[in-house]
């Protein structure tokens, strides 16, 4: 519980006594490149295959001849947009971006780089962490949009190649009872997850004391705590927004 309190106090320090805006602009752009571009490959790979697997598996489970085939595409579409693309991508990103943030900040802490900033009168938490949080909140949604497309595309390719569904059936399934709010919901979730992953990981890294061993432990804690926060927030948001 006191951990949670410290986390909120930590969040407060991010926004107090900041530097000039111009200072952040370049830092944010740099972080966007490293977080966004650096994660495209793994997010794309995971989501394409998850889409493919969802399609083939749904087809395998739908043995009733009275259920139209295009239902398969509808299931791939809804599970990808509502759950798989946002939640799974963010869990992947917690592993990649979260551990990276924690170990970078932890290393800066134990090598006194954080102290060096503080001595100059710079608010090290906002200088180092705010750009990462902003870049995450900007880049995660873009990655998730790409993830959703690729999951549906993966389903299409796997479904048609395996012969479980024709291209026409797939496309008609995608269009069937489409609710645009699904995409908005996915993006709202993603923004929340991005904030959680980046701040939790930064918190873990920033509070490291000791040496390389502690940096490793912080990096692990960043990933596990981020994942727990993601699934908890996922549940709460789904309850709030979809019922």
């Amino acid at each position, binding site marked *: 519980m006191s951990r949670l309190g410290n986390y909120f106090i930590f969040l407060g320090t991010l926004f107090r*006594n900041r*530097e000039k805006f111009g*200072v952040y602009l370049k830092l944010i752009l740099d972080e966007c490149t490293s977080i966004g571009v650096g994660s495209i490959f793994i997010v794309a790979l995971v989501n394409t295959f998850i889409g493919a697997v969802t399609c083939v598996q749904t087809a395998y489970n739908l043995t009733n001849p009275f259920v139209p085939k295009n239902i398969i595409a509808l299931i791939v579409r809804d599970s990808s947009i509502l759950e798989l693309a946002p939640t799974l991508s963010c869990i992947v990103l917690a592993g990649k971006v979260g551990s990276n943030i924690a170990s970078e900040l932890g*290393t*800066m802490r134990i*090598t*006194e*780089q954080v*102290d*060096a900033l*503080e*001595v*100059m*009168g*710079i608010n090290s938490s906002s200088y180092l962490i705010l750009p990462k949080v902003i870049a995450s909140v900007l880049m995660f949604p873009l990655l998730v949009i790409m993830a959703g497309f690729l999951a549906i595309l993966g389903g299409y390719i796997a479904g048609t190649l395996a012969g479980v569904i024709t291209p026409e059936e797939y496309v008609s399934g995608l269009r069937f009872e489409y609710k645009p709010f699904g995409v908005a919901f996915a993006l709202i979730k993603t923004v929340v997850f991005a904030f959680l992953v980046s701040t939790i990981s930064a918190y873990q890294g920033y509070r490291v004391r000791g040496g390389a061993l502690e940096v490793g432990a912080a990096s692990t804690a960043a990933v596990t705590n981020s994942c727990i926060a993601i699934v908890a927030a996922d549940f709460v948001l789904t309850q709030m927004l979809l019922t």
Partner: protein
Amino acid sequence: MITIKNISKAFDDRQILVGIEGKFQPGETSLIIGGSGTGKSVLLKCMIGLVKPDSGEVMYDGRNFLTSSLNDQKAIRREMGVLFQGSALFDSKSVLDNVRFPLDMLTDQPENEKMDRAIECLKRVGLEKARDSMPSEISGGMKKRVGIARAIVLNPKYLFCDEPNSGLDPLTSAKIDELIAEITEEFQITTVVITHDMNSMMEIGEKIMFLYKGKKLWEGDSASLTHSSVDELNEFINANKLIREMEK
């Protein structure tokens, strides 16, 4: 001049510093010596505001650092340069960008002035050739010198060095000491250096403060260092001598 009064600090239940008093004069290199874990770094961190002491005052030319407003503290900080024990260079920035960093963050100087000043400081420490290297590509001694260049780039009135020669060979270490002493005299800086290197004590110690288990047990100049009546200090010095003799 820096004056510290009655500085005490405990972490959890462990008392680290007990009522430390001291005065540090401009143009002079003052040393803080003592064994590992006696609280030297903590004392330094109390002075530069990285650790808040439980009691005591730190005065920078009459300005009370710990009780001043955030803006006044920032103003005093701009007059400080700090060389950290591990140099604390920013890994992601080149040598030149490390030295430029305080100028970029804390001044509104035009680009070419900042560049000139950064290069001037790199020249002062003899590293203008390494300006485009990354910190991971240069040796420990060079890192210390870049750290010194970064610490003096804003023309500080106060310079703090935490074990500037730890982990360096005797020759490099002597050069770093010399550099610090020269800069101190040249710009009339108030310099505080933590060390447990016997050579430094004899070479650059104009004023020396000996810490033992968080207490100041002795204070004086390098000439009187070896004939004090403080047992702990004699033990500390003899241990150093012993090692030197064993090395011969």
